[in-house]
């Protein structure tokens, strides 16, 4: 009797499946529940990886519910890479469709924020432009320039107060969330990613910069999207978060 890895894998991921034949306890008896050690290792280690990746989702749904959710997730979306730092990328769409969570509209966007923070954590290092370098540019030159943002920059937009929800569950003494749409910039001013609430038009402006628009065009798009677009406020955030790494034509 030979046991191939297809049989082994299928029985690992499905707790209802029969255990493969051809496995013993080394003393002539069938392996029985010894096989379940591997089943347990797989599900516990992958569940733990999700717990590490989505601490706020875990807090929002509760530990027991998160375990059930994780167990459904890892069967539907098993990892396709040995890099656990990337595991869980399908969590937002999973939460939007999973029966017990699909009515809780903000969960997928909170999961997107948690993914953005994790991606930012592992993104490449970059030297930010100094405030002096930025000030040295005459305003008319700035309008026609394109700015390169660090690869650790992420933008998460939501009709829900995702950053307030995140803070309320991740930080002590945070205020309880009030209903509002929130656009969040995630950047890494030093070694740790920081989420920051964007002022009106900020997301349109940064999104335009990320897609290669000039400063001038990005300002036009942001002003069009929001009458309250406040360029100095957005620039202050971008400088404080050390997001800009190069300015050119």
């Amino acid at each position, binding site marked *: *009797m030979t046991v191939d890895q297809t049989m082994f894998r299928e029985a690992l991921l499905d707790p209802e499946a029969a255990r493969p034949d051809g496995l013993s306890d080394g003393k002539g008896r069938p392996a029985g529940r010894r096989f379940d050690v591997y089943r347990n290792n797989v599900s516990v280690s992958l569940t733990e990886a999700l717990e590490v990746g989505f601490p706020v989702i875990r807090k929002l749904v509760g530990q027991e519910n998160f375990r059930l959710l994780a167990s459904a997730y890892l069967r539907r979306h098993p*990892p396709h890479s*040995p890099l656990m730092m990337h595991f869980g990328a399908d969590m937002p769409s999973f939460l939007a469709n999973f029966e017990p969570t699909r009515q809780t509209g903000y969960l997928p966007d909170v999961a997107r924020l948690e993914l953005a923070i994790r991606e930012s954590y592992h993104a490449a290092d970059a030297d930010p432009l100094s405030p002096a370098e930025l000030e040295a540019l005459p305003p008319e030159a700035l309008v026609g320039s394109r700015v390169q943002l660090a690869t650790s920059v992420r933008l998460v937009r939501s009709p829900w107060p995702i950053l307030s929800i995140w803070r309320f569950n991740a930080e002590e003494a945070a205020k309880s969330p009030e209903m509002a749409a929130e656009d969040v910039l995630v950047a890494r001013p030093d070694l740790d990613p920081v989420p920051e609430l964007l002022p009106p038009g900020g997301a349109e402006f940064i999104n335009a910069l990320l897609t290669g628009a000039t400063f001038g065009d990005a300002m036009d798009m942001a002003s069009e999207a929001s009458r309250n677009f406040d360029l100095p406020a957005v620039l202050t955030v971008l400088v404080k978060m050390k997001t800009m790494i190069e300015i050119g034509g």
Partner: protein
Amino acid sequence: MLDATAHEFARLPDAPGVGYKPQHFSEIADDAGPVAWLEIHAENYMGDGGRPIAQLRHLAERFAFSVHGVGLSIGGEGPLDSEHLARLKHLVDWLDPASFSEHLAWSTHDSAFLNDLLPLPYTEASLARVAEHVDEVQEVVGRRMLLENPSSYLAFEESTLTETDFLREVAKRTGCGLLLDVNNVFVSATNLGTDPVSYINAFPVELVGEIHLGGHDDDEDDHGAPLLIDNHGSEVADPVWSLFEYTIRKSGPKPSLIEWDNDVPEWPVLKAEANRAAKVLEAATA
């Protein structure tokens, strides 16, 4: 062809090492005790940058490093993941560690990664496949690797070779070295009803480039027989220390690692384990 002499690792010191955990970063830098080298799981340091890489660069100025892969799936039936091999080569190229090791196990099949070290039967066919994979790894990474003995919870009826013969033959065919996990030896022997000392006696200790020590948990199988679980979540058990002492008397001092990956303790607890390993190594040189 791999020119083994040109690409030989600097070699880990014959001293205690620990599995590096980021929560111990400052304490390790301030108070390493007998710890002369650190081991990392390769896959945790394959991001593009940020804190993990920054910590590694900092610690690499002071400590020798062992890169220990957990995701290559060397025992897999399918081909190795060439993208993953390229990431591994990148890490080994910039970090320039004193050692690289992986497991006699599989974890990926049909592209699904199962995040566990899964067992394989020991047959001529699996031997040929593992040797081919080890050759490929050494070829791509450009260095000699160490292959680690697994902890076993069950046996394959189709196996025709003992684990020690299997490992010896892989080493002979590929020129790789071996990583001897003494806790795994004890766990497997208890679980499969064999003798751990006979295993060490049959093991080619001259090929051992590193030893692992770790904690295990106690369970039992359907028949009430002891079933030890290799969970790296506690102190090294006393019978494993005895087996380690026996091994070191036979092999002489070796780079010896304390692995503690779950319920990671405060630094002083881990350091105390390293001290205990240091005493065993010192006794062998005295």
